[in-house]
């Protein structure tokens, strides 16, 4: 299975960087006196020029990372860091699976995050600053100048060795993908060969991010989100739910979770679907308990506000929320709440929850088919 993981600019940026850093390393070592190759003047000229090219490239890359939000890929994360290290030290030899998956929104494993971030915020800036000082703050006999080249030269040399070591490890680690060459081919074509599990995880991740974005929009927009409405309508359609039917009637064959809470916040009724979404064995385990059990403390506040609004007679449609399951895991679903009225009095709140997993799976399948189709078409066109 192939997934499209590196965009055109990223690939261009990466290979341009390869070319320039390689040029800088070779000419830099000649300037350092390690060997003679091009001739000193040519080496200096090439080194200076390539350094300016790299600066231009880095400026473009920074711009790209911020406008696309891709900079988040480099946010350091401790999650699975230990597992990743253990994988490289032992797991890889036993044929263990990668502890992390390469995802469009989370391309890098925690080790990569730390390494790349280190390069970006420490090594590359130090190389740039020392290099520019080397070029421009040495000669003038007026204005600000260096007392001598030694310190900047030492830093610059040390940085160069670190980069060489990085390149060795980096090139080697490209062979640890699905197949030895898949990572390098991916960096050339953009398409990386991954196993089934990796692809699934990637798609789920993609959809999760899409929903998160939707949710964020919903929070900032007091009106109903059209996006979410559309998404829900699609899901409801797939699930065979019609909007004008009563909740209770559709719940049975929809797979959606139904719940009713009284004014004290105690669950009066939940269906089996609800219980299984929250990973309870049966509805009996939930009935009689306070509804705070379904949320993290932060999210509970939000639920309480919604709950109180509904109690006053409002209907709150289609909120996208995160649930805390009985076993502590986290799930995502949409929720719609309406008041339960007896006579003229609100006696409780009822609603249904739609697990977005259903939608995820459906959409994932669609996408997989689409990718396969594209692959087939590409292969046909290639021939």
């Amino acid at each position, binding site marked *: 299975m192939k997934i499209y993981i590196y965009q055109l600019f990223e690939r261009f940026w990466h290979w341009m960087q390869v070319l320039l850093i390689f040029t800088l390393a070779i000419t830099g070592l000649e300037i350092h*006196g390690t060997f003679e190759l091009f001739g*000193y003047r040519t080496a200096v000229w090439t080194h200076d020029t390539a350094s300016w090219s790299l600066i231009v490239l880095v400026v473009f890359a920074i711009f790209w990372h911020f406008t696309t939000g891709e900079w988040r890929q480099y946010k350091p994360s401790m999650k699975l860091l230990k597992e990743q290290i253990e994988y490289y030290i032992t797991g890889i030899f036993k044929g263990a699976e990668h502890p992390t998956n390469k995802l469009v929104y989370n391309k890098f494993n925690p080790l990569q995050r730390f390494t790349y971030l280190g390069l970006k915020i420490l090594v590359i800036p130090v190389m740039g600053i020392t290099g520019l000082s080397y070029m421009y703050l040495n000669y003038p*006999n007026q204005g600000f100048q260096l007392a001598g080249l030694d310190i900047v030269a030492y830093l610059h*040399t040390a940085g160069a060795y670190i980069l060489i070591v990085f390149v060795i490890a980096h090139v080697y680690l490209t062979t640890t993908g699905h197949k030895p060459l898949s990572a390098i081919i991916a960096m050339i074509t953009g398409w990386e060969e991954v196993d089934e599990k990796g692809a699934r995880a990637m798609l789920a991740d993609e959809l999760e991010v899409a929903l998160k974005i939707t949710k964020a929009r919903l929070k900032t927009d007091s009106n109903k989100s059209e996006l979410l409405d559309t998404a829900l309508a699609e899901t409801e359609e797939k699930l065979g739910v019609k909007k004008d039917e009563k909740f209770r009637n559709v719940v049975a064959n929809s797979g959606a979770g139904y719940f009713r809470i009284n004014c004290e916040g105690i669950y009066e009724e939940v269906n089996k679907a609800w219980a299984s979404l929250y990973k309870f064995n049966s509805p009996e385990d939930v009935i009689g308990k306070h509804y705070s059990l379904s949320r993290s403390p932060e999210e509970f506040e939000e639920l309480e506000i919604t709950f109180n609004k509904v109690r006053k007679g409002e209907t709150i449609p289609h909120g996208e929320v995160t649930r805390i399951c009985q076993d502590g895991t986290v799930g995502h679903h949409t929720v719609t709440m309406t008041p339960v009225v007896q006579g003229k009095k609100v006696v409780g709140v009822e609603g249904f929850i739609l697990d977005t997993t259903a939608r995820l799976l459906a959409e994932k399948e669609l996408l997989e088919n689409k990718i396969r189709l594209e692959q087939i078409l590409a292969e046909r066109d290639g021939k």
Partner: protein
Amino acid sequence: MKQIIYLVLIILFPFSLFAAAQSEEGVDVQSTIKLVNYVKKADRVNRKVVDHSKFSVLKQDFKRPQDVTLACLGCHTERHTEIMANNHWTWTRTEKLNGRGEVTLGKKNILNNFCIGTSSNRETCTRCHIGYGWKDETFDFNEKENIDCLVCHDLSGIYKKESGKAGYPYEGINLNVVAQSVGSPKRENCGICHYWGGGGNNVKHGDLDKAMNDCSREVDVHMGTDGEDMSCIECHITENHNITGKLYALSSENKNRVTCSQCHTDNPHQDDLINKHGLRIACQTCHIPVYAKANSTKMWWDWSSAGRLDEEGNPLHETDADGNHNYMSIKGTFVWDQNVKPEYYWFNGLADHQLITDTISEIPVQMNTLDGAYSDKGANCKTKGCSKIWPVKVHRGKQPYDVINNTLVQVKTYAKNKGEHAYWKDFNWDESIAAGMEYVGLPYSGEYGFVETEMYWPLNHQVSPASQSLTCIDCHTNSTDGRLASLTDFYMPGRDSNAWIDNIGLILIILSFIGVCIHGGLRIIMRKNCLHD
């Protein structure tokens, strides 16, 4: 795809920019060389404005050379005042020694590590004085007829001063021919002293040699008679007999110097990086890759071995394969060298001198300390002057000193006859030193020894054609024969590195390489365990 091509172009833009600047350098050096204040040989107009052979005053029967001088001054009135202010006449100038006060110093009273000093030996040394009759301290520096105009202005080539005659010319020279030939000095006029100082051709400077009267561009790109054929005074511009240029063998202050930039400007190269080098490196450093190109120069003069005579008590002359003296009984042992690579020093234009009254504080004694350091830059320029790296001929030797008083000594070397305590006649150090020190009025303890000395001669002449100048790796190399291998007070790329950083870096690279090999090897060996297909 189009956007990517645009991006490539933008990112590689510096290359095109730098390459454009670079390509200009390929053009023929001769045609693009940047010059100011200079008329090329091809454009020079040689117009004779005056014909001295037509002046009747120069047709008189000159009894004495002084009569010529008076004839000159008859028309060129007041010129003698200019000459009398010139140190070719005074043999002294009042200048501030670096880090010390003002001293009136010159050939008259300074010591060097060649023939040591002129004081007690005026009669022979003043052969190179532009005057007549300076045989002892009774010489009248205010007597204008004692000025020797001819030694500098004779263009006939027949005028010569005689050895041991206090500046008088040989008897029998036709002074009418000489006087009627006069004009602006040619290189032969300057060369007669500046080539021959120290008792032989190219002994002292190393970059001023009789061969330069007619040499190729390879020997001296400026003076080469197959090239621009420049005379001394094209650079040593002279107005009112103030000759620009001086050398730190005698001078101390940074003034009245001749510079390359007076014609070549401060930015003579197409390559800006090379121009920047000019801020810390004298032009001479790269453009005088070797000196003493046509004839050898003296590198070592050991007075301590002087005085060895043959069986009949006569002085010896021994010559080496090149015909240079390597031993003379009157002077000691010499080492000569040709096509010498200069030594390099930081120099900020200020010099100090070991005066005869100074006690010796370090060995070898520095006869003329050139001040300078890498750190003479930026703000330090204002207080000390900017230092640049200069090529220097270092003349080393051993010369007599007073062991008790711990000072260098004046030696009486010359006399016409034996028995006048002159070393070159009597070969008795004690008596000669005593006579010399008595002449200058300084104490001598009676105990002498020989001390090693060094004298520094910054190089300015025998500039090579551009194609032969030093290139980057002559200095930017970690080889021990790199040109700047001994100038260690600064970090220079290509030469210097931090052993710790280099070793740790190398170890890390090797370790990571080995690590990768082991890791990869293990993966291949244990592939059968792999869960993937």
